[in-house]
């Protein structure tokens, strides 16, 4: 693996994640620019069948161990560090997701190499890696020179289209053995599935999403009316769910659902990466926000700068009128 570009492939509940494919796509580009091989590293227990999905890489290193059945950051980091003891890759790309968060930090700390988080892009300049990092809630972009051996980079979801990183193809697989101790300090007892909501948001054509800009639970009714008028359902970003205004089953984003509706109306949603992750694939995104600099306008197709509470009722009545006219 010396001199390789490596991507940590995250598997969860028997599947390779979308974020992994996105990171692989980026890794492929970087490896090609450097003229270096791309290696995907997959950890798990009895998960070897998944290696075929990592075909965009030149090779796969598969690490099987009972303690790697679930991804726990400290255990995964310990395994990766062992892999790199004698063969240091050029770079290790780790997706920044709920599943893998912390792995990159720990690998960097234990190897004594720098870590660069928040990467949405990696460029190659003069044979060296330059990470483009989006920080401060999306407002600032930093270009960071990756030094370190390996350079450890945490990759934001959405860095590249997942399709570009997903090729089903047999590639050479190396089975690597690691020695892991179980301090029995952390045990997964069980998964808690989200309550079956009355609505499967992933099947809706139209979603009306509310964020902090809706200001109060009482204003949800306005969003529900718009959703009804458009023939869709209401969902929300994390702050709205945290406050208890909508159930967990309605959360869109990093810890919630990923949706691809025909129309996604984002009301009072700032557009933090954690939310955008869940809806950037929508066909048509319309955003209403009182802040003209809200990052949501970078991902939306159409934007309205205004007070959500002023715009909503007017829009709803126009949609209703339009609908009545059409039918």
């Amino acid at each position, binding site marked *: 693996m010396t001199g390789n570009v490596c991507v940590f492939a995250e598997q969860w509940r028997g599947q390779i994640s979308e974020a992994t494919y996105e990171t692989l796509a980026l890794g492929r580009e970087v490896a090609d620019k450097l003229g270096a091989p791309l290696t995907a590293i997959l950890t798990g227990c009895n998960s070897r069948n998944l290696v075929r999905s990592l075909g965009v890489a030149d090779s796969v290193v598969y690490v099987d161990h009972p303690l790697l059945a679930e991804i726990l950051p400290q255990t995964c980091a310990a395994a990766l560090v062992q892999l790199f003891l004698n063969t240091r890759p050029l770079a290790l790309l780790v997706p920044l997701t709920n599943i893998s968060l912390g792995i990159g930090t720990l690998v960097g700390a234990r190897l004594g190499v720098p870590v660069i988080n928040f990467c949405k892009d990696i460029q190659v300049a003069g044979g060296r890696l330059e990470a483009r990092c989006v920080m401060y809630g999306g407002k600032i972009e930093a270009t960071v020179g990756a030094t370190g051996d390996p350079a450890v980079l945490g990759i934001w979801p959405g860095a590249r289209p997942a399709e570009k990183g997903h090729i089903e193809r047999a590639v050479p697989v190396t089975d690597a053995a690691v020695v892991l101790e179980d301090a029995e300090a952390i045990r997964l007892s069980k998964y808690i599935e989200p309550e079956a909501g009355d609505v499967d948001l992933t099947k809706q054509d139209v979603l009306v999403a509310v964020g902090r800009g809706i*200001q*109060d*639970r*009482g204003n949800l009714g306005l969003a529900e009316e718009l959703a009804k008028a458009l023939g869709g359902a209401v969902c929300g970003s994390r702050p709205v769910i945290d*406050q208890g205004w909508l159930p967990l089953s309605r959360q869109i984003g990093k810890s919630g659902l990923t949706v691809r509706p025909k129309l996604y109306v984002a009301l009072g949603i700032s557009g933090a990466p954690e939310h955008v992750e869940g809806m950037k694939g929508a066909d048509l995104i319309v955003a209403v926000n009182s802040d003209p600099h809200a990052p949501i306008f970078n991902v939306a197709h159409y934007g309205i700068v205004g007070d959500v509470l002023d715009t909503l*009722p007017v829009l709803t009545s126009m949609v209703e009128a339009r609908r009545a006219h059409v039918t």
Partner: protein
Amino acid sequence: MSACPVTLETLPRYPEGTEILTCLQCGVCAGTCPYGEVMDYPPRRMIAMMRAGMLEKVFTSDSLLACVACYACMAKCPRGIRLTEILLPLMKEQTLAHLPELPGELQKALQNTLRYGNPMGEPSRKRAAWVKSAGVPIRIFAEDRKPADVLWFVECYTSYYPRGQDNSRATARLFHALEIDFAILGNEEKCAGECGRLTWEPGLFETLMDYNMAVFQKYQFNRVVTSCPHAHNAFKNRYPVLGFNWGLEHVTPFLAKYLARLKPLLTRKLPYTVTYHDSCCLGRQNEFYQAPRQLLAAIPGVKSIEMVHNRVNAICCGGGGGGMWLDTYFKAKGYERLSERRVREAVATGADVLAVSCPYEVSRFEDALKVLGYDKRMMVRDVTELLAEAMEE
């Protein structure tokens, strides 16, 4: 330092405290209170509980969330007990301490006011952004430290809120036309804190008062003129304890004093029938009933008509005492929104324009007109907006 030494413990030692205990239990306060029928503990009952040593019950009920600090009870109390000024803020402070959770919107407004100097949570650096679009020169003290006759304390809604900015631009035009020598604090200005004082948060108020007094002392001016009746109240009733001793006016009575100079400038005819809403702070509390009416009478073409409840009997818009951020709470409880009650009365006069002089009222009444479907029949305008409209370029 505590700007308000009167607390519920120390109350009996003060004349205000003993005066509270002279309550007749007549119930006029509860009868006059716009939300009297939904309060578990209107002022009368609060005082009864105080006498019975059972105040704890008052604090652990959410009754005080319904008080919009409209001064109606205080204006009608036959004993002249200073309910809204003394008793109710103290009660609210205790209720805040006992409430398991503050309604989210109100909590946010208070936190924003502390952090950013305005309840909207807008950056302080943008407070004077509206100045660029004013159309007339506006001096900012920090940029030009020359003394001025008037320090125009613009306030939050009139700085950040689009309809409030309309008011500010109108005011600036009027000041300019009247050749007033004025300057503003610009981004250094922070909320005067009245909303904090009457809204559960004396600590917030004291912090803002300390801050504002320090800023005032940097500059030289003769008097403070403010667009916000709440700020006017704070400066008049509380700030003197920290040394506020400048002349003080709200924009409306201030402009009325210049009527002789202003009237010849009002050359454009405005064919409106106007009904004037007396705001609680300017009206009931300070009895500035004449000034706005004189100004309206000076506008050519304007016909005035009074609502059934006017002057001391005016019905509050519901924005005081934290009500500005409790609309959703009231709705959830099934209370009628006071702004809707008032707007119905306004519409019943047949007027085209509902004239106001408090920044809260513009947004509240425009909202109510929309909700009730009257927004084509009637518009809301601040008195300064009407005056500026009547003044041709």
